[in-house]
């Protein structure tokens, strides 16, 4: 049996610990008011949740634990039991370990077994890639309920004892840009009343010949570290290219669906930083759309962000409402987006 429509039943998210505002970061890193003001003006992100306890430096949450909490919320919101899930897909840039894959640890925590599970090594577009794969697997007709997840925990990179004054500009930006978190959504082939249809998912590599905009290294027993930083980004390339790519994704989604820009009721824009997201939203120029943004309060949480945005959007959708989500990954440059419609 094949089906033609996949719906998003519900979404859920989980964030570690209390919010950490810029003043708390400044205090921990012994930075002054000017540093805080710079973060406020140029990053525009006010707080974030961190898996590392700022005072003790101890890691308090793994990605698997956060993803399992997010999944539990999504499943509860959907009214679906873990045993009803028949395929799982997780996108992350920061798995707890290379093996076992974090998706399988999450399954274990949820009491899920005996189903296919997939993990994507992905950056900011991983949530959309997970939605894409979940949707495609459901469209085969071989599965009915997909649990798709995304999340990131930067604990391996976040050093509360680092001297910020010794960092390069690109590394400095990373300290304030990112937060930790996980999110999940439940997809179904059942024609559930009130659950929006996932009309389109776009997920496309556009990195041919382009230098990576973001690099995260990993190390092993024989090669402990390279000379460079473990995490680095070309913030100038990101500032230049992400807004342009976001507009291209929007145009392609609208054209493929025959929607006008006035048809979009909710916009879930890329969640880079408060200032970058505001700039992108302005460039997207959707006159009737309500923006659903979380980056100002919870920072850039990579693979988790679209699920947090979905969790906030789904309860608001009225019959006939349309929503568009956009994510751009600057690693090797990936354009992604999705379109939802409540019938």
């Amino acid at each position, binding site marked *: 049996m094949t089906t033609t429509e996949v719906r998003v039943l519900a979404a859920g998210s989980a964030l570690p610990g209390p919010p950490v505002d810029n003043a708390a970061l400044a205090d921990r890193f012994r930075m002054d*008011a*000017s540093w805080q*003001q710079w973060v406020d003006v*140029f990053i525009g992100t006010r707080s974030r949740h961190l898996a590392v306890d700022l005072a003790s430096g101890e890691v308090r949450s793994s990605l698997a634990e956060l993803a399992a909490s997010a999944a539990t919320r999504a499943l509860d919101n959907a009214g679906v039991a873990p045993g009803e899930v028949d395929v799982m897909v997780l996108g992350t840039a920061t798995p707890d370990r290379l093996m076992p894959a974090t998706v399988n640890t999450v399954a274990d925590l949820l009491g899920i077994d005996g189903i296919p599970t997939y993990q994507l090594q992905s950056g900011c577009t991983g949530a959309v890639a997970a939605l894409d794969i979940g949707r495609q697997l459901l469209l085969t007709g071989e599965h009915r309920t997909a649990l798709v997840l995304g999340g990131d925990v930067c604990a391996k990179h976040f050093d509360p004892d680092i001297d*910020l*004054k010794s960092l390069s*500009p690109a590394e*400095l930006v990373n300290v304030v840009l990112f937060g930790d978190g996980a999110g999940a959504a439940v997809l179904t082939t059942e024609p559930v009343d009130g659950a929006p249809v996932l009309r389109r998912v776009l997920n496309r590599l556009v990195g041919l010949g382009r230098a990576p905009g973001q690099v995260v290294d990993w190390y092993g027993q024989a090669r402990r570290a390279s000379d460079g930083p473990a995490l680095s980004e070309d913030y100038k390339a990101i500032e230049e290219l992400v807004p342009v790519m976001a507009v291209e994704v929007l145009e392609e989604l609208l054209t493929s669906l025959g929607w006008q820009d006035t048809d979009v009721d909710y916009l879930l824009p890329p969640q880079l930083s408060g200032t970058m997201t505001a700039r992108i939203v302005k460039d997207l120029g959707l006159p009737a759309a309500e923006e659903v943004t979380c980056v100002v309060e919870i920072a850039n949480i990579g693979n988790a962000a679209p699920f947090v945005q979905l969790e906030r959007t789904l309860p608001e959708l009225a019959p006939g409402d349309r929503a568009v989500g956009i994510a751009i990954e600057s690693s090797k440059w990936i354009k992604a987006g999705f379109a939802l419609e409540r019938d």
Partner: protein
Amino acid sequence: MNTIDEFVALLHDEVGLPVSADDVETGLDQVPGWDSVHLLTLMMALERRTGRTIPMPELLEAPSLGHIYRLASA
């Protein structure tokens, strides 16, 4: 921070900005490669060098690198 040459050397060595003394009095938007992250790096480098903090609002209003030099050396 006593001379403009010292300031230009600091821009080279600690901020990574390849400017010449000629760029110092041009508008910040005309300085090759200048961006907001350089402003932060420069602010931190000046604090290290002079032991004093320049308030961010004053830096934000500075029209040129020369203006920032004068704030730092005042």
